[in-house]
């Protein structure tokens, strides 16, 4: 908490500002330290893996060594194939997420505000939620075929619920005491929504956004593995069919790295938008 309070931009005094500067440096030093500590184990594992591969202890047909994977990555990237596949995958995930996520946000807002609509829609939505959307993906493909639509529907279906549930929850959890304040200050109805309910629900909405993005990415993997002629999932399938495990590794690593990047981006957004939040930060 101490170091945190110091980093907040607060114009108390020159001394306070100097102290804040020192704290920022401390935080960076600390962050660098934990980064190194966190990388120790993976670096060690990769070193052993590479050694074992180079010495021929493991068959490259099952587990290619890190250098081979890196080489495959460069080759695929050089032909432009990898970039194209990644682009297609990102596009699918983005479109699916946009459809499912915005519908989830919209219904979450509507059901959060309106008791009538909530009573009408929520029971059905909760029922559908209990069906694992990845399990019905073969059905979706059966209905819609192997083209883009089915993939986007699978992704959208997954992206819908985290945003729906968390938006709804965020609105319903707005402190009644603050609503009373808005009454006493005679906020117009519209401003109660935009100036009180939405900002108060924002932490939950952002959490929903993060979860929705994660599920979209998961849905993408499944949709592409079940059947596609392009994308990272397709690359993995090729690797499986042709017996080139390094393709599979490149695909898996790309899925992981992009997923992590997207998540970090939302996290950064959270930190920016929720700097007022007074919760336990560890």
């Amino acid at each position, binding site marked *: 908490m101490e170091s945190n309070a110091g980093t907040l931009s607060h114009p*108390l005094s020159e001394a306070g500002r100097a102290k804040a500067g020192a704290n920022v440096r401390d935080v960076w030093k600390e962050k660098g330290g934990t980064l190194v500590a966190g990388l120790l184990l993976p670096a060690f594992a990769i070193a052993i893996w590479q050694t074992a591969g180079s010495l021929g202890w493991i068959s490259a047909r099952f587990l290619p060594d890190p250098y081979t994977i890196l080489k495959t990555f460069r080759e695929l990237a050089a032909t432009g194939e990898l970039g194209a596949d990644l682009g297609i995958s990102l596009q699918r995930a983005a479109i699916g997420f946009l459809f499912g996520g915005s519908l989830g946000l919209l219904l979450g807002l509507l059901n959060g505000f309106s008791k009538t609509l909530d009573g009408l829609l929520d029971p059905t939505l909760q029922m559908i939620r209990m069906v694992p959307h990845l399990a019905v993906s073969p059905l979706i493909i059966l209905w819609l075929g192997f083209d883009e639509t089915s993939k986007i529907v699978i992704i959208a279906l997954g992206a819908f619920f985290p945003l729906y549930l968390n938006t709804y929850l965020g609105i319903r959890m707005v402190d009644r005491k603050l609503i009373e304040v808005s009454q*006493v*200050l*005679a906020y117009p109805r519209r*401003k109660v929504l935009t100036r009180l309910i939405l900002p108060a629900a924002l932490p939950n909405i952002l959490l929903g956004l993060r979860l929705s993005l994660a599920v979209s990415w998961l849905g993408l993997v499944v949709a592409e593995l079940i059947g596609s002629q392009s994308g990272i999932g397709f690359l993995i399938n090729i690797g499986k069919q042709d017996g080139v495990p390094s393709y599979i590794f490149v695909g898996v690593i790309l899925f992981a790295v992009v997923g992590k990047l997207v998540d970090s981006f939302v996290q950064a957004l959270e930190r920016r938008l929720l700097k007022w939040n007074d919760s336990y930060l560890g």
Partner: protein
Amino acid sequence: MAESILEISSVSRVFVKNKSTVTALDRVSLNVKRGEFITLIGPSGCGKSTLLKIIAGLDTQLEGKVLLEGEEIVKPGIDKGFIFQEPRLFPWLTVEKNIAGDLSLRRPEIRDRVAELIELVRLQGFEKAYPKELSGGMAQRVAIARALLRNPKVLLLDEPFGALDAFTRTHMQEVLLEIWERNRTTMIFVTHDIDEAIFLANRVVILKPRPGSIRGIVPVDLPFPRKKASSSFQELRIKILNEFEKVDDLELESGFVI
């Protein structure tokens, strides 16, 4: 003192809970003069907060009449400022934005008023601070500035310093008196602290519970600033305590425990 700004005539409030009824207020009448500082004091369950919510327009299920400048109070509004026991600031807004609320700081007249009020409640330098960075007393001062920005005809305060430590509380009482002396806003202040009630008020209204009604009204004619240790202050204190003891006797006779 000028004419009355607030007329409370024979106000009753009955709560119905599981078929049983509780009379929170029983035919309470009170006239408050413009610019007057009234403190309402009484044990818990005497209906003092209920009365305040009725004046604020937050509770409209009443019998009787409450008139503010001759007009019946039907809903909450900015002419009736309200300070809750907790500051109830919006955690995502800075101090100045909390004070401005739904009004835009881009309007120069709002910005100037907010700056003025920040000075009045002695929070210069904290304009851009978030509520989590404020102490309890500072946060409550922001709440007071937020209410004052709307130029209320009457400021209603519901045990506003109840959660603060003794030193901060004394300081806040002084800040409030300073505001009152400068703005002459009519104040109705609920408390269960006898010293606080005498320190602030022109008149101390003593309420008794079950059913909530006015036990007595004690005018305080001491000059400001008042000294809590002075003998005249202590005399008033004893007078009010005596009123409470009468209440206690009554409670014991009817078999209730406070």
